[in-house]
């Protein structure tokens, strides 16, 4: 008898987003940066929306961020999140640039204690066998 593993939905990377998810597997947060104007961009695209350059490359960022907003989805239709209640879905801003938004989960914290601007740091967690995600924890 095998244990039934419940997985979260996981990304299906394409040629433009592949570097990001490979970085996550290596516990590195890689964000696309324009080689021409220096602007960071997320989600990654083939063109820099700041200067229309097509010369873009992944750059490792610190993983430091601040909290922009958050919510606690209660009614989860997904079997993984239905069995991982409560959880916090959040938008954070990576400190390298304002704005540089990133959607994630906050871990090891209580939703009632959160505030806008709260310092956060990336934490790579294996959420299911072979599935690592970039989550964020509160800097205490």
């Amino acid at each position, binding site marked *: 008898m095998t244990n*039934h*593993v*419940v*997985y*979260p*939905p*996981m*990304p*299906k*990377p*394409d040629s433009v*987003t592949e570097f990001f998810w490979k970085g996550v597997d290596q516990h590195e947060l890689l964000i696309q940066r324009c080689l021409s104007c220096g602007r960071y961009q*997320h*989600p990654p695209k083939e063109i820099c929306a700041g200067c229309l350059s097509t010369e873009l490359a992944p750059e490792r960022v610190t993983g430091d961020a601040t909290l*922009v*907003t*958050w*919510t*606690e*989805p*209660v*009614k*989860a*239709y*997904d*079997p*993984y*999140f239905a069995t*991982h209640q409560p*959880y916090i*879905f959040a*938008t954070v801003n990576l400190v390298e640039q304002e*704005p540089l*938004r*990133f*959607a*994630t*989960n906050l871990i090891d914290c209580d*939703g009632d204690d959160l*505030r*806008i601007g709260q310092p956060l740091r990336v934490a790579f967690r294996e959420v*299911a066998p072979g*599935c690592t*995600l970039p*989550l964020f924890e509160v800097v205490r």
Partner: protein
Amino acid sequence: MTAMRNRVAIAGVGYSQTGRKLPFSDDQLVAQAVTAALADAGLKPADVDGISTTGGVSMSIGALLGILPLNWFFTSSLYGPSFAETAVMAMDAVAAGSCHTALAIRVIRQPRAEDHPIAAITAGSSADGPVRVAGQQQWTAPFGGSLPAAFIGGLQMQRYMSEFRATEQDFARHAAVQRDHASRNPEALFREALSADEYSQSRYVSKPVRLLDCDYPVDSASAVIFTTPERARDFRKPAILVDSWAMSAVADIDMALLDDFTSNAIGHCSETLWSRTDLRPSDVDCAGLYDGFSIITFQWLDGLGFCGRGEAPGFIAEGHTGPGGSLPTNTDGGACNVGRRHGANFCIESVRQLRGECGERQVPGAEVAVWSNATGSFAGASLLTIDR
């Protein structure tokens, strides 16, 4: 500055039957709504030469209802401010002369389990490995952010509450005021008085969003007939003039990644709208402000300048938005109470108020109305006046 002014009019409005899991196809719902709008205007199908739709295919609707040939037609990609998109396209087409009489349609059904937005994500077995999600969803689905109540309603409401110190009581009060309006609307699906306590007892969907902050999913179609003012004056009902309209996009579709979670496209759209008219917020007699989630009505009250940014809770508490207030808002009860018409009800209720057709909930002497739709990445709004 007022180049748009009164180049377009509204001649007729109509709804299909509306309710939960009705035994009607999209085609049947559209036919019901269009028939009602044509009867309201006193028009025949052959009087229409343009169709704009969000839901379905415009050309097919023309063929379905014998409205051919068409001089102009538009089908929404669904990545836009819903009914406002289809209405703005119709208004642009009439103003430009591409057609003379355009139907704007929104048909939307209560999601069935199999066509739920994340059904594709959850459909796969999770026993053999994770379901894989591509495109925009890869940035939210792995984190459980796929529900609109989370990535739209939850994120925006929490930010508004934190930034402006709004409280659950503010949203409870708003829900009670909307229900107060609904109690005066025979077509509303919820008409029983709602107390703040009942609001607070409704369950969270995505905290801080409660069930009573969400519009009510139903099967419905809505139709509005836009035409030239000259034609409208010959039709059955008093012409409603479109003073101005605006439509904005400020971000891609990823609403979890907005630069601004409180003003967003609503702020930009409001600014554009006021730049196209001589009317001012103080001229407006009643408002229909989208409430896919109740936070969105707060954002529109702020954005359109009826109060300062973040001041909607106080504005509502002072009674301005309720029956008899200075700006009765969502006098049909809003989509939380009349069901999800995806913006069309705000246009249709505004028309009915300006015509003086609203019975017990009529705003006395209403001459100017504003209606709006959507939030986040995109938004649309329009000012209407009665032809005097």
